[in-house]
C-alpha cells in the first residue's frame, strides 16, 4: 500500500515538473518578445529593455524557468507585465470563484447521475430505461454554454426568476450569491450529469453481468439488493476514473460558462489575459489549471487504493 502510494506521489511530482516545463517552453518559444508585445509596437527600445530587465526576461531561459517555478511554489508569481499588479492575489480570488462553480456543478452532477445511471442500467431493456437513456444522449450533445443560454432565456429573460448574470461573493450577500450561482452551476452540472449518467450506466451494466452478482442472487438476495450490496462498490472504480478525467472538462467548461454569465472567475481572467496579451498571466493560469487536473488524477489513483482491496495488497493474485 505504502509503496503504491509512493509510486503515485512520484508520478504526480514528475508530471508536475514535466508539465511546467512544457508550459514554460511553449510560452518561451512564442514569436516576438513578450516585453515588446506587452508595451505595444510604439514603445521605445529603452522602455522595452527596462521592462525586460524588470521581469528578468534578459536572463537565460533556465534561470527564468526556475524563477517562475519558485514564484509559483511561494505563491508569489510576481507582477503582470501589463497591469503591473501582483498576479498571486488575482489568481487566488478568481480561483475561489471558479471552485465554487466547479464543485457545485460536480456535486449536482453526481446527485443527478448516480441514481439515474443506476436506474437506466437496471431497466436497460424496459421503456423507462430507454427513455432515460435517450434523454441522457441528448443531454450529452448539448454544450454547457448552450445550456447556459437556454437557462438564461427561460429563467432570467422569460420568467425573470433569477439574475441572468453577475457574481457576488457569498460573504457580501449570501442570498444574491446563491441566486447568481444557480443558473451557471446548473448549466455545468446538467451537462456533466448527462455524461456521467452514461458512464454510471455502463459501469453498472458491466457489474450486473458479473458472476459474483449471480452468486449474490443465488444466496437469496433480490436483484436490487444484490446490486446495492455487491455491485455499487465495484461499479465505483470506473466511475471514479471518469469523475477525475471529467474534472478537467468541468474546469474548462467553467471558462466558457464564466463568459456566458459574466462571472469573474479563473476563466475570465485567462480570456482577458489572452486578449490583453498578458502572457505571464496566461502561463500562470494555464499552469494552475493543469496542476489542478494532475492533482485530481492523483486523488483518483488514491481513491482506487481505498475502493479496491486487490490494489492494496501488492503483487498478490
Amino acid at each position, binding site marked *: 500500500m505504502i509503496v503504491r502510494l509512493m509510486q503515485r506521489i512520484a508520478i504526480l511530482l514528475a508530471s508536475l515538473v514535466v508539465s511546467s516545463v512544457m508550459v514554460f517552453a511553449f510560452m518561451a518559444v512564442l514569436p516576438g518578445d513578450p516585453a515588446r508585445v506587452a508595451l505595444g509596437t510604439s514603445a521605445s527600445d529603452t522602455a522595452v529593455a527596462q521592462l525586460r530587465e524588470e521581469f528578468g526576461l534578459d536572463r537565460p531561459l533556465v534561470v527564468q524557468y526556475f524563477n517562475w517555478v519558485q514564484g509559483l511554489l511561494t505563491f508569489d508569481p510576481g507582477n503582470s507585465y501589463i497591469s503591473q499588479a501582483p498576479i498571486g492575489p488575482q489568481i487566488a480570488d478568481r480561483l475561489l470563484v471558479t471552485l465554487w462553480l466547479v464543485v457545485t456543478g460536480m456535486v449536482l452532477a453526481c446527485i443527478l447521475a448516480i441514481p439515474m445511471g443506476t436506474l437506466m442500467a437496471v431497466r436497460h431493456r424496459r421503456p423507462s430505461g430507454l427513455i432515460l437513456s435517450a434523454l441522457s444522449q441528448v443531454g450529452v450533445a448539448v454544450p454547457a454554454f448552450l445550456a447556459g*443560454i437556454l437557462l438564461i432565456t427561460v429563467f432570467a429573460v422569460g420568467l425573470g426568476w433569477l439574475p441572468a448574470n453577475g457574481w457576488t461573493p457569498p460573504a457580501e450577500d449570501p442570498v444574491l450569491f446563491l441566486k447568481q450561482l444557480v443558473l451557471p452551476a446548473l448549466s455545468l452540472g446538467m451537462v456533466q450529469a448527462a455524461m456521467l449518467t452514461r458512464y454510471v450506466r455502463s459501469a453498472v451494466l458491466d457489474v450486473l453481468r458479473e458472476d459474483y452478482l449471480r452468486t449474490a442472487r443465488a444466496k437469496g438476495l433480490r436483484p436490487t439488493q444484490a446490486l446495492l450490496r455487491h455491485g455499487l462498490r465495484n461499479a465505483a472504480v470506473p466511475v471514479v476514473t471518469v469523475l477525475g478525467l471529467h474534472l478537467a472538462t468541468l474546469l474548462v467548461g467553467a471558462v466558457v460558462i464564466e463568459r456566458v454569465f459574466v462571472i469573474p472567475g479563473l476563466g475570465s481572467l485567462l480570456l482577458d489575459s489572452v486578449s490583453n496579451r498578458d502572457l505571464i498571466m496566461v502561463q500562470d493560469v494555464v499552469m494552475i489549471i493543469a496542476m489542478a487536473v494532475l492533482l485530481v488524477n492523483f486523488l483518483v489513483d488514491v481513491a482506487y487504493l481505498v475502493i479496491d482491496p486487490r490494489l492494496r495488497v501488492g503483487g498478490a493474485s
Partner: protein
Amino acid sequence: MSALDTETAVKSAVPAGRRRRRPMTGGLLVGGLIVSVVLGMALLSFVWTPHAPTLVNPSARLETPSLEYWFGTDKFGRDVFSQILMGSRTTLFVGFVAVGVAALVGVPLGIVAGMGSRWLGELLMRGNDLLLAFPALLLAIMFAAVYGASTLVAMVAIGIASIPNFARLIRGGTLQVMKTEYVIAARAAGRGPFAIGLRHVLPNVSSLVIVQASVGFAIAVLAEAALSFLGFGTPPPTPSWGRMLQESQEMLSSAPRLAVFPGIAIAVAVLGFNLLGDGLRDRFDPKLEDRR
C-alpha cells in the same frame, strides 16, 4: 457454465453465418442518418445556399423566418439558414482534421505502447496522461494566445488534446490482441513485430478506431463550438455555429431564435456522432469492447 458460457450458448443459437452481423439498432440508424444529413448539408453548401451567407443586408435585419429567409436573419441581415449550411462545413472540416491528427498520432502510439516492453508502454502512457491535463479548450487558448485565433489553431489543438483518448483505447485493445494465441503463433511462424502490428493488431483494433473516431468527432464539434463561442475558433466572416451562438447572446431578449437554430444544429450533430459511435460499438465484436 459461467455467465459467459450461457451467453455463448445464447449467441450460438443465432445461425452461424450471421453470427457477426447483428441487427441495426435504432441508435445506429438514427446516428447514421443524422451524420449523413450533416454531411449532405456541408456538400450542399458548396453548390447552393439560398443567400450568400456572409452578405450583410441592412434592409433585412432581424427578419423572422419566412419563405425568403427560412430561419430568419441576424442583426446584420445575414440569412441564418445559409450560415447554418456553411457552418456545417466548418464543423465537419474541423472534425475531420482534429480526428485525423488524433488518430494518426494516437493509434500508432497506442499500438507501440501495447506491443513494446512494459517499461516503454508505461512511459508512453504516463506521457499520454500528462496530455490529459491540457484539455482541448485550454490548449487552443494557449495556442491562440501565441499564434492568434484561427481555424487551424483550433483544429490542431483539438486534435492534440484528443490523442490520449485514442492512445489509451488502442493500447488496451492492443494488449488484449497481444495476449491471444494467434499472435504467439505468428511469432512462432517467424513474423516480425512490424508484420504482427500491421496484419494482426491493426485489423483487430480497427473497430475501436472507428468507434473512437465517431465519438471523437462529437467531441471535436463541441470543442469547436465552444472555441468559436469564445472567439478563439474560426474567425469572422466564415460562418460557424459556435460564433453564431455567441453573436446571438446579446439579442436573447429580443430574438432568442437566433440562439435556437445554431444551438439545435450543434446538439443534433453531436448527438448524431455519439449515437453512431455507440451503435458501432455495440455492433462490433464485444470482446474488444471499450474498457473505460
